[in-house]
């Protein structure tokens, strides 16, 4: 247990260091150049619910083997008003970085990629009626889906 905590902390420090690499602070960046910042750092099992970002601006929070996936504020602003969410069916097995759906805005459909391998357990049904939730509340009501994933250590591997 202690060993896992040490590995997690070490990995989190690694990812923090990656995120703190030299970058402009608030200037808008071209799409997908760097991983987003890790927002908070806590110790112990609460570490696993830290929001992590991919280089394609999806985020995932994990708790007890269930991951919640959405897109970042940067991504929803870049997209503009989302008019449609295409999400996979419950039960779909995803491999990390597989395309699992798309969001449409201003006649442009943007693909979504799985931050982790796992199986979709729930999709956010509210988005069918109200796709704008992705813009209004990208971290809460506008989340996309939940998935069960197998390997917790995979969660700290942010691609730069």
């Amino acid at each position, binding site marked *: 247990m202690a060993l896992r905590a040490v590995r997690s902390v070490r990995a989190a420090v690694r990812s923090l260091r990656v995120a703190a690499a030299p970058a402009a602070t608030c200037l808008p960046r071209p799409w997908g150049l760097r991983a987003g910042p890790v927002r908070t750092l806590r110790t112990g099992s609460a570490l696993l619910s830290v929001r992590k970002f991919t280089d394609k601006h999806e985020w995932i929070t994990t708790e007890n083997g269930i991951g919640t996936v959405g897109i970042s504020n940067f991504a929803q602003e870049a997209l503009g008003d989302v008019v449609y969410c295409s999400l996979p069916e419950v039960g779909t097995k995803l491999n990390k970085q597989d395309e699992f759906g798309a969001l449409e*805005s201003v*006649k*442009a*459909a*943007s693909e979504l990629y799985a931050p982790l391998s796992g199986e979709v357990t729930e999709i956010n049904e509210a988005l069918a009626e109200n796709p704008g939730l992705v813009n209004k509340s990208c971290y809460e009501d506008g989340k996309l889906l939940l998935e069960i994933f197998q390997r917790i250590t995979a969660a700290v591997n942010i691609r730069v």
Partner: protein
Amino acid sequence: MRQPAVQLVRLSRIPYTELLALQERWLRRLQAEPGTEAPSGTEAGALLICEPAGPVYTSGLRGGLTPEETARLRALGAEVRTTGRGGLATFHGPGQMLCHPVLDLRRLGLRLRTHVAALEACAVRLCELQGLPGASARPPPYTGVWLGERKVCAIGVRCGRHITSHGLALNCSTDLVWFDHIVPCGLVGTGVTSLSEELQRHVTVDEVIPPFLEAFKETYKCMLISEDSSN
């Protein structure tokens, strides 16, 4: 500073499915490249331009054609295809300039929304060059290029791993009757037009391509390279 280079792939009349297959090959090639660190000398993408050989109706990510409509349209002698692009139903056919820029947005310094705006700007500029100064883009859900209440150019794109696909369809001498069988882009009550209709003379796709390429280079601030010429 050297401008990014885009490969011009100018095709003559080809079936829509062939265009999709070529687009797919370019997508796979560009999505496999490392991106902003790609060595200079490789293209920032490809500009596929063609005139569809036959009539085809397409729907987008959200759909846009019911199974009944699909059957009816096939009975008219048209192909019907689903695509993953944004937008609803539209028509492609002879007399139309169909342009699919398969571009790496990072290498061109663009976001998806600015790419859509740039496609609109190219079509507006092209209309101006053809003697139609009243062309304009309109905000969503009326994305596209309009002359009054009539759309002359439809737009629908897709983006995956920063690489765009699909693009715009500009009516040069398209037989507009084909549009009567659908609600174009799901916009009830709007009309469709073509350059030939507006200028009251026969405007071919071949005539329109060179000024369009100029507008593209200006708008995207890129070079167009082709196998034969040194443009």
